Each structure stands twice: as structure tokens, then as C-alpha cells.
């Protein structure tokens, strides 16, 4: 056949590529051409590119070995721009598109001349597993330096440093039957299920559905197998109950038939998704499929043989040779030697000779191979050398010859004199390993099958395997098996399968395969030239043998010691060979050694697909109050409290000494806001506080059980502060609860604790006290809350409400219903600032109107909006705790000095009561809440700072407590803090010390945690 001059290995005809469409691409800076339908790998082979990478550890030149997901060497970095970078793409799975730009993942400074290869050549023999750790261990401080250079030399691909221009979607799917793999068994199964009316999803990781049928030599119904595949795919595409997902890899099988499918939608079109009507469609989709039943028709991967020099470019697995010739019209060399242990691999030699190139010899490990394919090869004049194997590949950057000799596989010995065959390509086949990865994800251990010399998947209920995926490699049997498995799966769902007519396949007599994994060499394994088991991780047969000699007997330990099957490879090509070698070294059988666990994902999944739309502003929902827009317009800085955006402080413009306008700092704003509340009136958006509506005849009884204090006598119109403990006696949350009516209460919780408190109430009601007639409803979002507080609060509110605000009739801890700014409102006279305060609750939709009305009337009182930071300062000045800041799950109400909120004499054993009488909760040296006043008023102690009694004590100093809240108070003109200190209640007036990281030691006095207005007169004006 004639050759294309530009693509020396491209055949003039044959294959499924479109020769009329030429695509340009760049690999390692050089420009090449390929055709539509090529993968990057087939295009590189067509152009005669031998070296595609450097190996991970020894930096040896590597070529393309396989044609699919199992490719260990041809890992490339994709992308012509920074934002488009994609690391570790297998060239065998990347469809070629015009303008594709790729670089080898490994190789510094380049693949042709790699400085690290010195390590491989000189150090190679002396680089056993663990080499880096053993060699560069001392001094430990230098490891980081060594590592930097080793990593630079090794290379693992790199992430883009710019924002991804593409978007990714998540889809949630349901189906009766999920069929994974659209080869012969998968197509037959999908057709059977679809004709039965079942909802079917059929996915396949390749560019085109059909699997092995696309490069098969077999005839189905007397026509090329690919034609039957095309017809079936077309028929399935026309059925409403079938979803076809090509370019879609089933990467993980999770619990209860939950399978994640990664569909690549635009990666064959360009490095970013090409725009359609101005929009970029999603680059890929993650389908989260909950399947009724799952059928694995994932096929099998061919095992290469392990022989010396089997990593030199020009060594391929036999099936890949057929795939490149028959599917892509590319023949990856000129003179082939095939080393095999089975009939099936003979196809590679027949395809090679059909492509017009020379087959030097087929070297068969079996003494008397006699199958039909063997006879065909002999009839074509191919020399078949029996009872032999390729011991060693010769050459460095490309195979130049094969050393062949007779062997005794059982005795692991070379028995004859070696003959050297000149060739540039060696194809090998040691048999076929079912792809058991997904079945392994379920936790079921695969079982060894001596008949097929491979592991077959163990299957949990509802999961089926068919065809090659369970070792049935014969085409006719595989088709029937797929159809039968689909029928079984449907029967399990109570459905019947459709009747389909399977295509006719010519029967073929096949000889039995023999077991051959590692080919013996004249020298013992440890001295022989490197025989690679796992090409991606540079694991050799000698490495595995050494591992077993060093005492690693479990295959899981061998794996970890040698790195066999690590990383993106997940042992696709090498694992069985590695196990066989470990078994040989340990004198065990393969099933005795067992297999390692395969984990998701089957092939790497880009983070974008995993994140989907859950990124940037959609990463987490944001919650806004009804007044949010006002806060934005008035320049609020926001703080995130749970999912809520709360105004943190409201910086204002102020005139500096030089006359220029500038924005306030946070400290300046907070000081101004604090003084406004203490001296005039401030307003806080408190809508985010959790609000739970509690109704029912037993509501009061229930409150008495979940709060530490008493609720029996709280009358309608009254409000009470409540403290909630867990049953271990530790404070969990606090808030006020108001009696709205005899059987109706409104509970408030901390902003962050709202959901947890509601669930807490529910769990006690549902699991312990279902006899109580009480109902809980979250009304946080329904009511907006604004706190008007400060000496002028009453005057301001009086202007816009019909509620009688007289201090005698509307007392502190009362609530009233009425109109505020013309809308229905509940007004609560409770105070978190220590000042006169009204908390106005209105329906959220009215809130902006009420808020603005307050400001319209508030100007003359200098109404000042304040944020959470000022709220914190004001409450801390009063010694009011924040659950979760001043408590941490180890603080009792007694520790907080809140004896007044504990109803020890209540009739029921409320939650937490029993624990408060334990000896530990009664200790007098528990950490107790106190105030701290720094000796230097300018000092604001660090929250979390540790407290010691003797700063001259030798390190480690005994620590007696820590700061929980600390601020600067403009009212006190001093820093102040809340803290917990061992036995603190008995230490009033003592001096403590706070040694800081920078060497400073702060001095502070233990004082009452109530810094301002201890008698509470200000809130009662």
C-alpha cells in the first residue's frame, strides 16, 4: 500500500477516519496533521512519533502502548492557553480536533533529551522501591530540597492558573437498567431491555459506540461487525425509552445502584467548548444515575507480557495494534514480532499483514497451538515459533529487535538458545482481564477463574455482568450473554424483556490459552534488564520480587511499597501481572495472593465536572433579610453568619484633619455606632435570629422540659430569657421565648443555631415525648425583626405606633401587638444592648416600609444603623453571652454564673438537670466565666489567648483559661474581655497574665463580666 508522505504510517484506505478532513495539531511544539476520527494517539502514530513521554521514576523514553483507557505512557498536558490547561490526558482517549495543542506530561527539559534519564540509566539498577525515601532520607531537613528537584524531573502535569472559561453540569437520572459499555454484549443487552419497554441508559467511554465490533475481523450476519453495531446504535437512538451517552465514562459505582457517569460533550471539538448562539454549552456533564438494575458490559483489557525492555517504544499490546490498523487506518511500525499465549492475539499479525507490512514471526508460548487463527496465520506464510516467547526487546528509543527463545513457563526457565529477530515492533498478549473496577467499587471481592486466567467480578444483588466483563470472550456467546443478562435484570424488576434476533456469527474453533505473565530471562529477575509491570508508575518485576523478599507478603502492602496500580492508572494493564509475579515469588497461587481494591474513579475526572454549577456565587446559598437592599445602598460591610449576609458595620464618610473626605475605619465606625446607642438611638436588623412558633396544649410543659428555667407561670404578653442545655448539662443555645397565648409561644434562637434547635425540639418530641401535644414551625423568614434601642427609642417608636409605650403598662420583658408604621406588628421589650429597647417584628414583606418609616422619623433623634460588630461590643459590655462563642460545649449554666436561670426545683427532670449534679459539674475549679480588664486600657486582648497565673513559670506554663470575647469599649474607654478561668468566680480582683506569640505578656484583672450598669437601670427607663 502507498503511504501518505506526511503521515508515514497512515494506510491509504481502511479504518473509520475521514481522510477528506485534515486536522492540524501541535505536539511538543512540532506541527502535525491527522484526520477527523483520529485520537491524538492514532495521529501521533500515523506521524511516526515514537517517544511520547518520559517515565515517571526512571525517566525512560516511552511510546504508545495501548489504544484506550488503559494507556499508561501517553499522558499529555493539553491546552494552548493558560486557562485551557488540562493535565494528564490520555492521548488514546483524546479525540483529535483542529488546533489541538499538547505536550508530554513528563520530561524536563524535553522528551528527546531528558536530564533525568541519567538517573534511569546509571541509577536505574540501583533504584529499588522506596529508593527516594531510602536515599534522600538524611538529613531530614534537606528532603524538601531534594523533593523539589525530583518532582520537577518527574512531573505530574500541572493545573491551570487561570479561571476555567467552561461550565459543567450535574444531571440526576433514573432508569430501570443502566448498561455500562456499548460493545457487543452491551448493545445486545440494551436492545433486549429497550424492546421490553424498560427505561434504559447505555453509556460508553469511547468516541463511538460499538466497542470491539469497531475493529473486529468477525462478520455478523455476513457483514462487517461494525455495520451491525451501527444499525443497533441507530435503532436505539430512535427509541424514546433509551438514553444513549457516548463519550461517557462510568467512573464510580456507589451505594444502592448510584453510579456517576462523566459525559464529555465538547472535548472532541476544541480545548474549550465552542460557542453556540453566543453561549458556551457545558463542557461536560456529571450524570448521577440511580438505576433500578446495573449491567456491566465493560469488556476486558488485554494483558501485555512482562519481558525485558518491554517499555521501549515500539512495544504494544496486541489488541491495540489491531485497533490502530482497523479503526484508524494507522499501522504503528514496519516489522512485527508478536509474542502471545493465546489464539485471539493472532488477529494483530493478520491485520498487520493485511496492512501490507511484514510479520517477522509469531512467538507462541504454547507447544502445539492449533486454533483456526493459528492455521490462518500459517496459511498466510507467517513463521510461528512455538513453545517460546520474546525474552527481551532490544533498542533504546525504538525497538530494533527481539530476543526469542523456548521457555518452560511452569518452571520459569529459559530452555533454549536465544535467537535475535530484527523488528521495530513487538506486540504481546498474555490474555484478557475482565474490567472489574466498577464491580469492585461495591466492595465485592473479585474471584479468580482458572478457565479464563483472570478475575471475574463478584456481583452484589441487582448488578449483572455480561460478555467479556465476566470472561466470555467469544463473540456469539457474548452477544447472547448480554441479551440474557438484560432479561434477568428486567425479571428482577418484574418486567419482561423484548424478543430480539441476535446476529449470526460464524463459529470459530479456538485453542486453549496458556498461563504466561512474566517471561523468564536467562538471568534471574533481580539481575535481568528491567521487566516492567506497571509502566505508569515504573514498577518492575524485580521491584515486586524485592518487595516480597523484604517481607511484604500482602498484595496490598506490595502495592503500597512499589506504587503498583497507583494514580490515574488504577492497575488497568499491570495489576494481574504484578499479582502473578508476587504469587510466584511467594510460592502461592494468584487467588491466594488475591487482588487489590480498585477505587473510584475509573479514569480521572476533572474537578469542574465534580463541582458542576456549585462554584463561585452558587457555591452556597446566600440568605438576605428583607432590608438587605437598604444595607447595600447605605454602604454596609457584610459579615457571613451561617448562610446569612448580615451588616457588620456601616462606615461613613468623615472629614479628615486636612479637610479631605475619607471613609471611616471599622474601629471608628463601631465606636460611633456604640456611642449612638448608648447616648441616642440605634437600629439593628435582627431578622436573622431564629424564630420558632410553638403551639399546642402541651407547649408550656414542653418548654419546661427543654429549658433549664421555669415556664409554668409565664403569662400571655410576657417574655422570658431561656437557657437550653444538652443532656450532658452543657449550654447549647439561648434566647427569649414569648407567651403569645396560653397554648402559643414564640421561641427565638441564635442566628447560627436556628436549624439545630428546631431539630433538637423535634427529636425530643418525636422520640421521647410523643405524648405531648405540641407543634413546631420555623418562622424565621416570615418575620423581619428590627431592634430600636437607646435612650430615645421610646420617643421614636411612639411617633409611628398605636401601642401604648407607657413604661408602667408596657414593661421590660413584655410584648404587645399593634400597628407600627401602619402595619400589624409585634413589639417585644427585650434588650441585648442593656439600653431601653424595642424589637419590632413585622411580616417580612412590610419590613422595608417600616424600616424606612423609622428612618424618616428618626433623623431628629440621630437614628444610627448599627451592625453585628457593635451588637457584639454592646452585649459584651453587659456580660451577655453568645452561645458558641463564649460557650464551647463544655460550659454549664453554673459556669456562666447563671444560677438564676436554673430551675432545680422544677417537677420534671429537664434536659441537662441530671448531669448538673454529677461530681464533675459540681467541681469548684471548673472554668468559669469572668470579665477581664486589661491593666493597660489601650490593650484589646486576643480572643482565644491563653491565661496563666505565673508568667515566669517554666514552659509549659499551666494554663488556667482563655479569652472568649474581646473588644474595645468606647463607653468604658478601655479594652475589655469575657473569659473562662478555672475557679474564676472566686478570683475576683486577682491579676492574671496573657503571654502572646510575639513575647509580650499582657496583664489583666479578673472582674465581673457585667462591665456596664450592673443593676440594669438603663434598660428600664
Amino acid at each position: 500500500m502507498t503511504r501518505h508522505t506526511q503521515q508515514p504510517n497512515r494506510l491509504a484506505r481502511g479504518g473509520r477516519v475521514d481522510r477528506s478532513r485534515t486536522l492540524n495539531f501541535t505536539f511538543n511544539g512540532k506541527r502535525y496533521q491527522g484526520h477527523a476520527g483520529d485520537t491524538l494517539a492514532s495521529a501521533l502514530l500515523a506521524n511516526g512519533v515514537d517517544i511520547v513521554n518520559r517515565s515517571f521514576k526512571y525517566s525512560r523514553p516511552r511510546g504508545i502502548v495501548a489504544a484506550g483507557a488503559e494507556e499508561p505512557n501517553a499522558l499529555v498536558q493539553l491546552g494552548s492557553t493558560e486557562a485551557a490547561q488540562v493535565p494528564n490526558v490520555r492521548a488514546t482517549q483524546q479525540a483529535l480536533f483542529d488546533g489541538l495543542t499538547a505536550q508530554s506530561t513528563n520530561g524536563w527539559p524535553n522528551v528527546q533529551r531528558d536530564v533525568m534519564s541519567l538517573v534511569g540509566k546509571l541509577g536505574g539498577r540501583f533504584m529499588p522501591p522506596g529508593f527516594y525515601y531510602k536515599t534522600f532520607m538524611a538529613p531530614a531537613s534537606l528532603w524538601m530540597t531534594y523533593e523539589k528537584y525530583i518532582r520537577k524531573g518527574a512531573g505530574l502535569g500541572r493545573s491551570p492558573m487561570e479561571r476555567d472559561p467552561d461550565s459543567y453540569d450535574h444531571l440526576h437520572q433514573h432508569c430501570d437498567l443502566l448498561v455500562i459499555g456499548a460493545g457487543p454484549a452491551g448493545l445486545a443487552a440494551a436492545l433486549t431491555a429497550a424492546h421490553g419497554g424498560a427505561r434504559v441508559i447505555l453509556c460508553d467511554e469511547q468516541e463511538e459506540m460499538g466497542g470491539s465490533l469497531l475493529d473486529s475481523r468477525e462478520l455478523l450476519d455476513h457483514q462487517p461487525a461494525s455495520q451491525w453495531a451501527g444499525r443497533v446504535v441507530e435503532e436505539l437512538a430512535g427509541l424514546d425509552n433509551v438514553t444513549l451517552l457516548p463519550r461517557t465514562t462510568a467512573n464510580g459505582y456507589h451505594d444502592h445502584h448510584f453510579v456517576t457517569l462523566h459525559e464529555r460533550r465538547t472535548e472532541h471539538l476544541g480545548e474549550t467548548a465552542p460557542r453556540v448562539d453566543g453561549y458556551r454549552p457545558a463542557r461536560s456533564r456529571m450524570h448521577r444515575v440511580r438505576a433500578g438494575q446495573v449491567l456491566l458490559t465493560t469488556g476486558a483489557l488485554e494483558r501485555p507480557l512482562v519481558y525485558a525492555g518491554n517499555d521501549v517504544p515500539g512495544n504494544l499490546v496486541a489488541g491495540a495494534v489491531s485497533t490502530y490498523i482497523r479503526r484508524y487506518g494507522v499501522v504503528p511500525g514496519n516489522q512485527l514480532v508478536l509474542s502471545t499465549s493465546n489464539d485471539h492475539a493472532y488477529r494483530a499479525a493478520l491485520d498487520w499483514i493485511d496492512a501490507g507490512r511484514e510479520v517477522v514471526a509469531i512467538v507462541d508460548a504454547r507447544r502445539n497451538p492449533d486454533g483456526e487463527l493459528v492455521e490462518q496465520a500459517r496459511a498466510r506464510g507467517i513463521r510461528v515459533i512455538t513453545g517460546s516467547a520474546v525474552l527481551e526487546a532490544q533498542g533504546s528509543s525504538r525497538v530494533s529487535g527481539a530476543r526469542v527463545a523456548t521457555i518452560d513457563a511452569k518452571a520459569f526457565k529459559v530452555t533454549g538458545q536465544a535467537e535475535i529477530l530484527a523488528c521495530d515492533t513487538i506486540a504481546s498478549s498474555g490474555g484478557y482481564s475482565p474490567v472489574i473496577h466498577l464491580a469492585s467499587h461495591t466492595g465485592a471481592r473479585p474471584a479468580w477463574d482458572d478457565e479464563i486466567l483472570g478475575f471475574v467480578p463478584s456481583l452484589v444483588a441487582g448488578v449483572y455482568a455480561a460478555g467479556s466483563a465476566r470472561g466470555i470472550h467469544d463473540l456469539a456467546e457474548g452477544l447472547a450473554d448480554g441479551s440474557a443478562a438484560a432479561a434477568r435484570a428486567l425479571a428482577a424488576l418484574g418486567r419482561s424483556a423484548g424478543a430480539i434476533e441476535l446476529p449470526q456469527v460464524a463459529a470459530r474453533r479456538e485453542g486453549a490459552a496458556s498461563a504466561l505473565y512474566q517471561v523468564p530471562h536467562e538471568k534471574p529477575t533481580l539481575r535481568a534488564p528491567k521487566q516492567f509491570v506497571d509502566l505508569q508508575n515504573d514498577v518492575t518485576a524485580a521491584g515486586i520480587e524485592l518487595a516480597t523478599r523484604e517481607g511484604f507478603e500482602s498484595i496490598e502492602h506490595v502495592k503500597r511499597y512499589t506504587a503498583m496500580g497507583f494514580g490515574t492508572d488504577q492497575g488497568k494493564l499491570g495489576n494481574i501481572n504484578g499479582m502473578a509475579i508476587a504469587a510466584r515469588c511467594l510460592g502461592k497461587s494468584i487467588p491466594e495472593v488475591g487482588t487489590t481494591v480498585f477505587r473510584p474513579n475509573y479514569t480521572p475526572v476533572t474537578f469542574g465536572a465534580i463541582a458542576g454549577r456549585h462554584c463561585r456565587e452558587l457555591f452556597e446559598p446566600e440568605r438576605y433579610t428583607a432590608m438587605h437592599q437598604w444595607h447595600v445602598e447605605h454602604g454596609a460591610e457584610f459579615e457571613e453568619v451561617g448562610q446569612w449576609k448580615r451588616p457588620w458595620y456601616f462606615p461613613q464618610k468623615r472629614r479628615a484633619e486636612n479637610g479631605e473626605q475619607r471613609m471611616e475605619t471599622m474601629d471608628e465606625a463601631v465606636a460611633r455606632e456604640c456611642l449612638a446607642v448608648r447616648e441616642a438611638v440605634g437600629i439593628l436588623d435582627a431578622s436573622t435570629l431564629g424564630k420558632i412558633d410553638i403551639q399546642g396544649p402541651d407547649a408550656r410543659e414542653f418548654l419546661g422540659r427543654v429549658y433549664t428555667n421555669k415556664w409554668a407561670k409565664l403569662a400571655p404578653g410576657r417574655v422570658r430569657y431561656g437557657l437550653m442545655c444538652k443532656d450532658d448539662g452543657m449550654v447549647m443555645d439561648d434566647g427569649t421565648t414569648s407567651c403569645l397565648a396560653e397554648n402559643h409561644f414564640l421561641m427565638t434562637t441564635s442566628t447560627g443555631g436556628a436549624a439545630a434547635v428546631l431539630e433538637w425540639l423535634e427529636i425530643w418530641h418525636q422520640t421521647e415525648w410523643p405524648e405531648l401535644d405540641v407543634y413546631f414551625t420555623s418562622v424565621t423568614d416570615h418575620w423581619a425583626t428590627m431592634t430600636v434601642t437607646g435612650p430615645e427609642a421610646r420617643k421614636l417608636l411612639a411617633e409611628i405606633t398605636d401601642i401604648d409605650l407607657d413604661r408602667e403598662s408596657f414593661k421590660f420583658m413584655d410584648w404587645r401587638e399593634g400597628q407600627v408604621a401602619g402595619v400589624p406588628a409585634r413589639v417585644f421589650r427585650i434588650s441585648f444592648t442593656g439600653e431601653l429597647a424595642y424589637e419590632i417584628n413585622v411580616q417580612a414583606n412590610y419590613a422595608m416600609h417600616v424600616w424606612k418609616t423609622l428612618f424618616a422619623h428618626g433623623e431628629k433623634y440621630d437614628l444610627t444603623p448599627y451592625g453585628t460588630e457593635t451588637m457584639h461590643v454592646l452585649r459584651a459590655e453587659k456580660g451577655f453571652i453568645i452561645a458558641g462563642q463564649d460557650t464551647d460545649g463544655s460550659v454549664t449554666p453554673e459556669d456562666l454564673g447563671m444560677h438564676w436561670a436554673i430551675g432545680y426545683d422544677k417537677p420534671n427532670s429537664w434536659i441537662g438537670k441530671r448531669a448538673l449534679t454529677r461530681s464533675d459539674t459540681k467541681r469548684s475549679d471548673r472554668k468559669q466565666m469572668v470579665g477581664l480588664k486589661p491593666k493597660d486600657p489601650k490593650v484589646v486582648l486576643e480572643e482565644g489567648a491563653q491565661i496563666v497565673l505565673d508568667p515566669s513559670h517554666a514552659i509549659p506554663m499551666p494554663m488556667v483559661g482563655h479569652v472568649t470575647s474581646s473588644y474595645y469599649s468606647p463607653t468604658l474607654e478601655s479594652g475589655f474581655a469575657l473569659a473562662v478561668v478555672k475557679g474564676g468566680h472566686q478570683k475576683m480582683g486577682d491579676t492574671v497574665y496573657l503571654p502572646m506569640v510575639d513575647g509580650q505578656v499582657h496583664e489583666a484583672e479578673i472582674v465581673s463580666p457585667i462591665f456596664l450598669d450592673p443593676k440594669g437601670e438603663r434598660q428600664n427607663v
Partner: protein
Amino acid sequence: MFHIYCPHCAEHREEEEFHPKGQAHIARPMDPEACSDEEWGDYLFFRDNPRGIHHELWVHAVGCRKFFNITRNTVSYEILETYKVGEQPTITAESLSQDKKMTADGVTVADGGLQTEGESDSAVNTSKEAKV
């Protein structure tokens, strides 16, 4: 990710809708004051961690907000049954050891509930055994 049958909603829903709340059937002592410190400590802190059948309390947190119980195999992650608070499991480690056949054939559950489609150890077959 589990597929959980909520006995209140009478539907299978995704695990994302649920929260696990620890071991089921931990009853608060009727008279806490009568408990010794050790008994109280047992109630508060000590939980089983079995390999195999376990009864767990879950809540349909973003669904009906109801609590219910799950009998789950902690090895295979199979959910054998779900049942309402106040009911007793029909499947226990003891019942299974008495009748090993039960899991292979599927099981019946409390109060008409359905068990989640699952897979128990005994339901695992190697594919070659099932060869047709």
C-alpha cells in the same frame, strides 16, 4: 450514596435529604435522678459500633422532618428495613443468624414499609456461578 425509604413519606429519597442521628433505641431513663453517675454516663455517651447489623436513628431533614429508624448492614451498607419511631425492627443480628436465608430472598419489614434495594453478603455471587 444511600437510597433511603422514608416510612413517613412512603418513598425512596436520596441520602442528601437525610441526617444520621446515631444509634436507635437509646431510651432516656424514665427517672434520671435515680440513675447512678455510671448509668447516666452510659446513657449519654456509650454506643454500639457493630460490624454487621446496626439500628440507626435518621431524620428526613429536608423532607418531612420526621425521625425514623434504619436497620443497616455496616459492612455491605445494605439497608434492610426502615421503620417508624416506636416500632421494633423485624430484622436483627439475632434473627438473621437464626435464618440465614432471609437476606438472600429479600425480607419483609415493619408496618408495610419497603426496604431499600440493597445487597447483603449472602446475596453476593460471582458472575461465573451465574453463567447461563
